[in-house]
């Protein structure tokens, strides 16, 4: 163990002076995380401003204001203000003070109560998305109203009673007040999404951790070429001691690389990674997985150039499959399923899970999968790499 630490300390001392190691392990992931998070528009949340003109003042109009529109305000999706006239609202839209205006015309409630067609007006501004959302919300409200109208007519037809306007109004009001019997709640993994700054920090950290992890185990091949491996082996230490020292370097480089990205994106970009203990667990497990895969590649390589090239190909392929370049929520179903074979997907999944709150238990599944990847690939890799040490 002491000799392994001596070997690891020597390697790390060399890496400190190795600019390519510092670039690949720290500067590149950090730089790209900064670049992506500043160049790509913020997709963390949507907010719009609506102005509402209620020229009706009836109960159905009040239902619209207190129901769906207030719901948008409560969800902090929209800020709702009011205006007295359509002209005033239109002026605010034209001036860009609000994104869209919703006009409830006079007689709106009465028309509905009479079973007649009623119209709502949406005045869109530059943001067509805001107007589309307003139309969508109002269409949904219209569907609810239509359902109420059908129900009331059915009730009146069954009783063969003469429709009294006050009765119709009361039934319509009661019907609109009924809560929807079925509420669909969504908690899919893809729906739990870290902020874009956190996502790009995570994706770059897991992409470059493979480049960082190669520096220890690939060093075995370099030491063999330089003759220093034979000299180490001639010392009173076993082959496993040398292997363990190299793996330790890979692990330290991987952990340092990811930790720097996590800390720097938190401080400099405002990324929100979640519970520190859970993040530490994810980082360590991912570093172990990356070290295992790097060891596996080294076990099958003849030269350090061959190993470096193979690790780059493996890292980039896994990154594409694992969602390092785009969120898996935007990927085709097949790719999303395939991504589960990559450490990248499990790390990003863990980061996304932490975005919804929770501690280390929340990411226990991801951590276990990452550790299993590290154990399997590392185990096979070490068995192969032993042949590098003792031909």
């Amino acid at each position, binding site marked *: 163990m002491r000799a392994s630490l001596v070997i690891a300390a*020597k390697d790390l001392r*060399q890496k400190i002076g190795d600019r390519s190691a510092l670039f690949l392990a720290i500067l590149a992931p950090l730089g790209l995380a900064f670049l992506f998070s500043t160049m790509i528009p913020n997709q963390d949340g949507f907010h719009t401003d609506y102005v509402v003109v209620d020229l009706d003042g009836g109960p159905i109009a009040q239902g619209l204001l207190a129901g769906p529109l207030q719901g948008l305000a409560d969800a902090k999706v929209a800020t709702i203000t009011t205006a007295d006239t359509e002209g005033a609202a239109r002026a605010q839209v034209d001036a860009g003070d609000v994104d869209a205006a919703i006009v409830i015309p006079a007689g709106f409630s009465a028309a509905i109560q009479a079973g007649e067609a009623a119209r709502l007006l949406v005045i869109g501004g530059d943001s067509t998305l805001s107007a589309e959302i307003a139309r969508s919300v109002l269409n949904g409200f219209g569907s609810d109203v239509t359902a109420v109208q059908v129900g009331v007519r059915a009730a009146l037809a069954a009783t063969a009673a003469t429709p009294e306007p006050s009765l119709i109004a009361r039934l319509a009001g009661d019907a609109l007040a009924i809560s929807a019997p079925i509420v669909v709640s969504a908690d899919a993994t893809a729906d739990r999404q870290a902020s874009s700054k956190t996502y790009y920090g995570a994706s770059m950290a897991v992409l470059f951790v493979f480049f960082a992890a190669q520096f220890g185990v690939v060093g075995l091949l370099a030491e063999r070429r330089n003759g220093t491996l*034979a000299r180490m082996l001639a*010392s*009173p230490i*076993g082959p496993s001691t040398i292997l363990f020292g190299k793996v330790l370097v890979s692990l330290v480089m991987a952990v340092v690389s990811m930790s720097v990205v996590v800390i720097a994106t938190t401080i400099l970009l405002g990324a929100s990674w979640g519970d520190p203990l859970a993040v530490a667990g994810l980082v360590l497990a991912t570093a172990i997985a990356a070290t295992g895969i790097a060891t596996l590649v080294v076990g099958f390589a003849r030269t350090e150039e061959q190993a470096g090239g193979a690790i780059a190909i493996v890292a980039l392929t896994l990154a594409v499959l694992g969602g390092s370049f785009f969120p898996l929520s935007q990927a085709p179903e097949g790719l999303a399923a395939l991504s589960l074979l990559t450490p990248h997907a499990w790390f990003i999944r863990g980061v996304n899970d932490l975005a919804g709150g929770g501690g280390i238990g929340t990411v226990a599944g991801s951590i276990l999968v990452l550790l299993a990847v590290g154990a399997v690939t590392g185990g096979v890799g070490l068995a192969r790499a032993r042949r590098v040490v*003792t031909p």
Partner: protein
Amino acid sequence: MTETAPLLVCHDLRKRYGERTAVDGISFSIAAGETYGLLGPNGAGKTTTISMICGLLRRDGGDVMVAGRPVDIGATEAKASIGYVPQDLAIYPDLTARENLKFFGRLQRLGGRELDRRVDEILALTDLADRAKDRVDSYSGGMKRRLNIGIGLLHKPALLVLDEPTVGVDPQSRNAILASVADLGREGMGVLYTTHYMEEAERLCDRIGIIDEGRIKAEGTQRELVALVGQKDRVELVAGGTVGPATAALAALAFVEGATLGDGMIELVVDQARNHLPRILETAADGGAIVRSVEVVEPDLEAVFLHLTGKALRD
């Protein structure tokens, strides 16, 4: 280990690479304080043999014992008795000489003040103390060579194994290396020295194993090897005066097997010539020759190798 027990014992070492046999039943031993040379051309099996002795390479057969302990790849105790100096430079160019020495010293279980003291001693021995804090990639080839050897001496090994340490070295550094190895032998360290330079083996080694095609063809002191192939010494006398009668007188001596005269030089073929030099000079003077210089040319290992293998050392 008793005083008479050999420091290194190799018995029937064997190693194959596919269809090619690199080492084919090599056996020899080295006593403490003895310098043993493995002399053979490139590809003879010297490095493979050394690699198995140092526990760097799995062997297909045979045994190695160093200081009474069996050597294998994981045999850490036996390896602690060995100082290994590889043929190619095995140092870190991006570290300083002191950092290189400290790293390999720690692997040899040295630490603390003892490590610092040994590092200072080796830096002084290799004449690198002034450059100890410089990165090795700024060193000359000779300095790197000296450091390469110094690392093998850090832990004061009982057996020093040097694999062709002078290949590609300038004459000045080569002489320094040979002098250092000779000193180590005199200080009681067992030395296994491989080379394909006949002069080095002749100069350094107490005993020599002639190795070719993975086998030791013959073994012994230089004189024993020469005797093995029946070669005699040659005595060259550069002389003036009446050299003709002197040559005849010398030819009549019982131990002289041949005498020729040519161009002011009398050439004699004599067995064990150094033992007979006084008588040769006395006879030449009595015959009227004025001897200006005398040189004894002993049969060299080149001739022995040629005799044993049918090819020259540098083939």
